[in-house]
Structure formats: C-alpha cells, structure tokens
C-alpha cells in the first residue's frame, strides 16, 4: 500500500490561536489533578499542590496559603550541616510567647513575663534577649530572677483635628491589648519567617522555612542573595522584579504539573507567564487582572460583571472596536484568529 510521504513542519503556523491552546493545555489537566496537600517536614503542613496551587498561581495571590522560602547559603556555609543549622536558628523567628509566659495584672496595670529556661534553651534564647525584646513596650521594667515586671509605656498621643496633642491614660483595656501584642513580639529571627529546617541537595545544605521575607533573610551574611527562592510570586516581583516573577511563575507551574506527572509543553507555561507579566506587573488571570483589562466592552461584559461594563461603557461613551474573539462571536462575525485572520479572494475566471 502506497501512501504519500508528507513531512511535518515543526514551526508554529502563523495566526495559530496559541492563547487558546495554552489555556486548554493548562486547564484540561486540571480535571485530572488531585487536591491533596503536601507536607514539608517541619516547615509547613497542608501546602497546597495540584489544582488549588495552580489556581493560586494563576490568581497571582499576594500571599500563598503556605509560603515557603528556600534560603541557599554561601558556599562557605553550605558544606556543613552545623553551620547551616546555625543560620536556620538565626532566621526562624521566635516570639515572646514561645519562651515566656506573659500575664497581665489589671489591678496594678502591669504585665509580668516569666522566662522559661527550658524553652529558651531549645530555641537558644537568653533571658537578656527577652529583656531586650520587651523594652520598647514599657517605660520601666523590674527584673527578678527569671521574671520581668513591665510598666507599660504610654500610648503615642494621637494628633487630633486641631493639631493639639492629647495625653492618653493607661487603661486596663490598653494593658490587655498590649499583653497580646507582647506575646506576639519577636525575640529573635526574621519577621515573617518561621520554622526553619536544614535540607540537603546536590549543592550542599540550605535552609527551608515558612514565610517569604526575602529582604529580611538576605540581611544574614551567610545567605547567598542570588539563590534565595520563595513560592510567593508577588514577593519575588517586589524584590527582584518582573523577569524574576515570570521565571517564578514558570517554575511554580511546572512543579505543580510535574508533581502530578502531567506532561505540558514548556511553551504553554511560558506563554501564560508572559501574558501575566508582559505589562510590567504580575496580573492575575480573571476579572481583576487580564480579563478585566481587555479592550473590548462586549468581551468584558460576556465574561463577568456584565452590567458594570455596559454601564461604564455608555457613561463614558466607549467604543467597541471588535478586535477580540468574543466580541466578534457576539456580533456574528469571523473571529480574528487562525484561518479567520486570512483574507483571500480568488479571482473567478469565466470558463472558455
């Protein structure tokens, strides 16, 4: 049996609707994904993977449900687990409540913090460190053994309308609130980073922790600033800029799909990352991001918040240029993608 041998071209055909193919290639496996959560031992539990995580990435959330930061170390520190452990201890934030019992006394309007030797040792926190952490909250403190009695500092007087300053009294209510605040005060470590753990990879040891404070972590001299990574895309954008954010979107999306053993060509993931970042800021997929900024009124109205878009369009006398796919479907014209973009007229020759 003879068949014509026809070679395929590897190039993407011009006018191919790559956007739709990309959306389908990422959306379709969504139905096959599991919703199980992932466990980073000692760092964070119930880290979303699969579909929930994919939705999180596409939503460009300010803060992922469980932020993780991987702090790689300079080569001098990366070799030894003990050095890395030290860095981990320095990074993980310890709160007052972790090392001391804090009670308020509403009669005398004082707060008493009792240092726990045992907990302090475990977190390598000394009594002095605790003292230092408590200082900003009080006007005076009395120290006895492992107890600190605080006399709360007065609230900062608020500036009123007229510009005069009004002294505030220390009330029981204020003391209660301050006690809460003190419990959450940081004794040691970087704000926003919790539960650091040392992990080993082919490049040596690094610290994995909960949270995403890149700037805070970089202040530690042992940290290799160039190789710090967090799963918080918005934070990467804030600190390292849009190109880094684009790469982070690609990496995070790939990781999700790979973990589920779902094959998706890198080009699709790159396109979605580029679409989310081409404007210079990370924009979400959805009504508050890309879809909400589309040019066509009809396209936006057909997606979500129909009435809002129509009303605004008429109030500001907007024009619908009919350049999008939905817009043209709505008015019943050929869509401007694929073969619909090509205008070809064949000259009809009369026979004979």
């Amino acid at each position, binding site marked *: 049996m003879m068949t014509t041998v026809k070679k395929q071209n590897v*190039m993407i055909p*011009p006018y191919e609707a*790559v956007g739709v193919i990309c959306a389908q290639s990422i959306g379709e496996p969504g139905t096959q994904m599991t919703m199980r959560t992932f466990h980073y031992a*000692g760092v964070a539990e119930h880290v979303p993977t699969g579909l929930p995580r994919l939705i999180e990435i596409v939503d460009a959330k300010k803060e992922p449900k469980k932020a993780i930061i991987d702090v790689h170390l300079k080569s001098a520190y990366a070799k030894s687990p003990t050095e890395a452990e030290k860095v981990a201890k320095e990074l993980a934030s310890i709160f007052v409540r972790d090392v001391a019992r804090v009670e308020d006394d509403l009669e005398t309007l004082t707060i008493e913090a009792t240092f726990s030797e045992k907990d302090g040792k475990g977190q390598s926190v000394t009594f002095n460190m605790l003292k230092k952490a408590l200082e900003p909250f009080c006007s005076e403190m009395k120290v006895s053994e492992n107890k600190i009695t605080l006399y709360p500092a007065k609230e900062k007087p608020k500036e009123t309308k007229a510009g005069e300053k009004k002294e505030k009294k220390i009330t029981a209510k204020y003391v209660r609130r301050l006690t809460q605040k003190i419990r959450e005060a940081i004794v040691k470590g970087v704000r926003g980073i919790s539960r650091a753990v040392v992990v080993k990879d082919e490049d040596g040891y690094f610290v994995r922790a909960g949270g995403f404070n890149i700037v805070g972590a970089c202040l530690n001299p042992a940290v290799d600033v160039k190789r710090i990574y967090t799963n918080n895309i918005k934070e990467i954008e804030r600190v390292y800029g849009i190109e880094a954010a684009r790469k982070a979107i690609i990496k995070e999306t790939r990781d999700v799909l790979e973990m589920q053993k779902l094959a998706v060509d890198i*080009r699709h993931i790159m396109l979605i990352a580029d679409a989310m970042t081409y404007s210079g800021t990370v924009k979400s997929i959805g009504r508050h991001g890309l879809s909400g900024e589309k040019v066509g009124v009809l396209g936006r109205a057909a997606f979500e918040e129909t009435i809002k878009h129509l009303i605004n369009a*008429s109030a500001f006398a907007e024009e619908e240029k009919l350049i999008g796919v939905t817009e043209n479907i709505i008015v019943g014209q050929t869509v401007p*993608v694929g073969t619909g973009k090509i205008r070809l007229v064949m000259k009809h020759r009369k026979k004979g």
Partner: protein
Amino acid sequence: MIMIEVKKVMDKLKFSLFSPDMIRKMSAAKITVPDTYDDDGYPIDGGLVDTKLGVVDPGLRCKTCGGRVKECPGHFGHIDLVRPIMHVEFAKHIYYVLKSTCPSCYKLLSRKPVPVKEIEAIEKIEEKPAVPAPGKEIIGSVVPVLESTAAAAEVEIKAKKPKKEKSVRKCNHCGVELPEIKLLKPTTIYKDKDMMLPTDIRDWLASINDNDLRELGFDPVYSRPEWMVITALPVPPVNVRPSITLETGERSEDDLTHKLVDIIRINQKLDANINAGAPQLIIEDLWELLQYHVTTYFDNETANIPPARHRSGRPLKTLAQRLKGKEGRFRYNLSGKRVNFSARTVISPDPRISLDQVGVPISIAEELTVPVHVTDWNIEFCKKLILSDSYPQAVYIIRPDAKRIKVGDTPEMKKEQVEALKVGSILERQIMDGDISLFNRQPSLHRVSMMAHEVKVLPGKTFRLNPVTVSPYNADFDGDEMNLHIMQTEEAQAEARYLMKVDKQLLSPRHGHAIIKPQEDHVSGLYFMTHDDAVFTKEEAASMLYLIGITELPASDVAGGKYSGKLLFSQLLPPTANLRTISKLGQEIVIKNGKLLKGAVESKVMEGELLENMFVTEGSEFTKNFIDRATRIALEALSMHGLSVSLKDYTISENGMGKAREITNKMSREVDNLVMQYRSRSLERAPGMSLKETLEGLIVEITTKTREDVGKVVEHDLGIENPSIIMAKIGARGSLLNAIQMSALVAQQTVRSKRLARGYKGRILPYFKAGALTALERGFVYSSFHKGLAPYEFLYHAMGGREALVNTAIRTARSGYMQRRLINALQDLVVFDDMTVRNADMSIIQFVYGGDAKDPMFASKAALLDVTKQDDIDTA
C-alpha cells in the same frame, strides 16, 4: 452569472447614553395607560402593548411600520416621568461628578488650588503648550478623574481620601464652602445632612460645562451626566417582552411589562397628587415609590432594597437579570449560539471503521444536508440525486437566482426539475460516505474534543466511532452522547479536512505525545502476537495479513513454513522505523529499519516514540493507516490467542494466602507495638511533628509496606501467566493494585491522606473501644474483594470512596471555572507571521512564540526532520 455575496463587516460599535430628547424622538408612542389589552382582547392605545410598538399577535399589523409579526422589528415607546428619577446603575457616576464639582459655580474642583508658578514649572519640564490642553497633568492629579472602567475601582479609593482630612474645603474658583456629598446606596444622595432631590441633582449636573465634563472622562456629545437622571423612560418594543397565552386562554404578561405597569401607575398617581396640590410629604413618598419601581425595573437584585415580586412570590426578572450570568443574554445567547445541520445521539464503538470515520445512522444521514455546487463535471450526478426516491437524495435546489425550491415528490416534478437544472445552481443533498463532518463531545476541554471525521453511513441508531479515538474525546460507551455538525461552505469543509481531521490530531498539542494510539485489547493482542513463541501457520498468517490489505505472503521465517508474529508485525512498519528500548517487563525491544527484531510489543512501544516518530517522518495519512491496521491485526491475534479472566484468576493458593496472612499479622503486631510505645510515651517524636503525628506517620508507613509486600506475594502466586497480571504488566489495562485488592486484601482506607478517624468520639463505630488505634479499628481492610468485606470494613471502604467522589465533584467545578478564566484571558493571543505573539490590541506578549517559534506538537521531534528551525525563521 456568478452571485457575489456582499458581506457587511461591522467595524465598531459606540456606546452612549440617550438624552431625553433622543428618547422622545425615537419613541413610536407615548405610553400613558398602565394596562395592556381591553375587554375585547385588543391592545389599548397608549397602553403597554400599543400596536405602534410592534405586534406579537398574528394577524395584527404594526401601526408604525405596517409589518406583521415576523417583519416588524419592534419600536421603542416612552414614558414621561412626572419627576426625574435617579438611574440606579449610574448612581455612583452621579455621586462622583457631584463630588468633583462646585455646587455654586459648577466648575471642576481641585483638591488644592495649584499655584500659577507651579503650573508654569510643570509646563517647562514637560515642554507642553502654554495652555495645557485638557490637562490631565494638572487636573488629573488633583481630582478623581473618572476615566475608564478600569479606573473606576481606583477612583473609589481616591474619592475616599478627601473624606479623611476633615478640614472644610472651599471651591478654588468661587470660594464657596463645599458641602460633604454622600451616597446612600442605592440611589440617595446627601448634601451635608440633607437629602438631595433628583430635580436638584439634575439641575446641578446640567450646569456643568462641556470642558469640565471632558476632564471627568465624559463625552458631552454622547453622554452627559444629567441624562443619568431619567425624565423620559424608554419602553422596549413588545417583541422584547412578549406575553404568553396559557392553555386556559389567559394571557400572562412578561415580567418587564408588569414592572412598566407599576411605573406608569405610580407615575400617574404622582402626577394627580402634584396637580391636586397634595402635601409635600405625600408627594415625596410617591416619588420614592416611583424611584423604587424604576430601580427594580433596571435591576431587581439591587443591594439593600427588597426585590419586586410576582403574585406567586417569585422575584421578577428585570433588565439586569436578563443580561447577567450563565443563563443571561450574553453568555447564553450571544457567546453561545445554536446551529443548524447538527445531530446528536448515543455513541457506540466500531473497531472496523477507520479512526477518521464516524458511523452515522441512516436516519440522521437522511436528515442532514450539504450544499453542492452544480458544475459541468457533476451535473449528471446531481440529476441522479434529484431523480432518486430513496436515501442519497437531493432535498433542495437553489437556483442561480437564489430561489430555493424543494425537490418534488413525484417523478414528473422531479423530471421537470432535472430539465431545469443549470450549472451554477446549488443542490442541497443528503450527506453521503466521505463527506466531512465535525464530531464533538462535551465538555470540550481541549482542541481535540472536536475533530473532523469522514461520514460513513451505517445502519443502526447510534454514532459509531473507532475505539482508539475515545481518549481525545474522553468518551466511553456507557451512554455517552456526541454531536455531529455538517459544514455548509467549501471553505469550512476544506479547513476541517486539512486542519481538523482526526489523523492530523494524533499528537496532543499539549505535550506532543500520541493521544490516539492502540490501547487496551490492542496492546494485549500485539503483545501475544509478537511474543517470542508466537508462531502462526501459513493459513493463519494469510488471514491476518489479508486483514491489513496484504495479499502477498512474505517468505516464512520459522521452520515448517510457519510465520513468527514479529514478522507479521513488521509488515506494518515503515522502513524508517527504528526503536531500541526496555519494555515495562524489562525486556529489550529492538526495531531496526522497519523490522521487529527482539522483544514483544507492549504499551510503551505503541504510545512512545514509534508512533510519534512515524507521524512526523511518514505523515498523518501513513500513521492513521498504521494504527488502523495494527489494531485490526491485534484484535485478530487476540481472538486467536484468547484472553479472559475468571474468579479463578483472582484466587491465590493456600500457600500464598498463608504468606499474606503472615505479613498482615506481622503488621498488626507492629502497629500494636507502636501504639503501646505511644501510650507509654516511649515513642520518639519526629522533628516538627507531634507524638500523635509521629505515630500515624509510622503506621501509614507500615501499612503501605504491608500492601507492597502482599503485592509481591500476589504477583508471585498468580504468576506471569495470569491474564490480569499480564494486562497490568504490559500496560493494557488494570494495575497490580487491582489484582491485590481483589485477591488478597484491600488494605488501608484513608480520608485526607490519613487513617480513618471520624464517626464517634475516639472511634469510628461504637463497636470499638474509644481511643482505639490499631489497624483494624482505624480503617485497615484485611479482607479481599474476593472474600468479601466485614460490615465495618465495608464502611471503611465506603468512607474512602465517598471522599474520592466528593473530591471529583469539587474538582470539576473548580477546574472548570479556572479554565473559563484562562480561556478568557488568553483567547485573543495569536502568533503573527513574524512569530510574535500579540493580543487583540496588538501588544506584544512574546517576541518569538515559546522562544523558538516551534509548535509544541512537534517541538520534541525537530531532530527527526532535516530542517533546522533557525533557517525557517530567517528565510520566512
């Protein structure tokens, strides 16, 4: 003569507001009567179904255009409101305009008067003309500028700012102290502490000059803010709100008509009260009632006001409800369109048709038609179709003068029509074998959910499709239905044939791997056929080769004139086929120059490189034929070999049973031991976990290991000859886990990846002791499906099963919405001929698609082709 179709192309649409003048000008009738039909059943003049607005009853003629029901497009009328009414949807816009203008001189406010010096400074820096043309630089920075829809949200934040600084502000033009303007949703506006009347609001808005309006983002020609306070309300034509006649002969009016009746009634009442000089309080009450009715006429789901209801208590569907949401006008009727020339029925498998065909029942083929242009070359064929009085028939003739004629029923009429048939006519004939069609199964999650198939008319009532095509459609035959469409233009047919045909879609655009490939029984068949000791007699070989269209027997390769299966399989392969891989069974498989030399074919061979490389090097047509022939010969080989399972195949021997029991007993002991350690607190806590978590973690580890160990026993006991094991091993169907669960034990059931722990406090059933932690009491199923589950085990299994069920339900909903958003955000992205990816407004998203302009479908196969990508980009 050639008919040239003049196609009108819509270039753009303009949105705007209607001024009261325009509303009155375009109005066909002023509506004054809050009623519809009189006692005789005739539309009342000046009523809501005034025949000037168009007609819905057959027999009547429209008084405006004289058209009948189908001809008259309908005409708007209007209601003159006695007092102006705020438009709910524009309340926010009105509020912002009031906030941004002075109540006394009506000029645009600046938050801080900009000193002249500073203006000059800005001009110098920006090198702008002396008088800043509608200067966003200056005013835009100080006043909440309502610019576009996208900015609306921002504006809200901006507008809130001045509220915080409580200092009294003054107009920077006339120095008047500015009142605080507040919007009480939905439609009430307060000026300081006083409620503003819509009349006052309207007067204020009308006094703002055009330039200031432009600053605020309005276009005074098309939209002036005072038009947002309604004085004339348009009444939509009757065909927009048709009444329905119930069986009882009673008329039931549309919700919109009901609402309009309310509006007119209150409007009249208000008018009467004003004329009678009623007290202000009563007038204001009625005014507010009118506001309510107009508000709900626009949107009956406005926050903070009770929805208007039908007599039955059902909330009315008013204008906003008609447009909104999934069942609204936009998504239901405008984005989703119904089509003709389509059919839907149940699908069933037919391995004997080609994978690019679809079996169409005759009853459907008789119904669907396709237009055929009558030419010199097919006129005889066309005549035959007209004359025919059974299945392949012409149904309509469209003459060159565009007149549509039904093909006659009698031979005489047909004869007449045949004689009149001229080249240039169009025939609509029933679909026939070889016609192209689009075949689709919902949900259409990806491109290959809709592919082009060639029609193959078959007896029966179901669509038939080759089972290898189920995977792209994600179809099965448990009652699934699919849709078929017949394209009505040559362009569409050609595009379908060359771009959408099944054989062009063998590789997925998602990852470039084969999605249409021999599966399940095909794999089993090929495996048995190409097995090392599979030998066929001459007769067998001949009959098998005949199936794949080979009529000349190759030379025998096994002693005694017999044929090896490998030789037969090699007949399918192109000479370019080469493969060297380790199979799932650990065997080496070698294909060299189109000859299978070593190993038995299994799923890895079929789905992997072999098929994909063939598609790229040999083309779609060849690969299609390969799959068709391979599956055909595989099924023949399988039925010759035989493959079945019985209960016996899932029964393990006494010995095996004993071993399995030993393993589970050991597990039970280990778990008990751990629990004891946990109770006595001698268990060592794992880092970052509580003691309980540590225990659970260890137990899960043990139970998983138990299942694996038992698995090994089962695998060994059932043996490699067991059909179930074979199928699992070669990747045809099923997994080892299935065999284990059926024959040995079902093992641990989980909910949220943890051992079961719900039900009663500290236990799953009252049957157990509270706080019990042993395997048996926490969801471990010792029984096999073969043996049957104990009642509590049955419950465990149901618990695990329920979670899976709930998860799928949630997942489909969530991923469906995600995909809708993805599609909406990315649908306008297109690769241009310079390989840039751009969106609808031509912004560049990528400079080169994917960085290398390769098609994801073929990207990994570029090495197989002698073309290099760079050349293509450069010379393109």
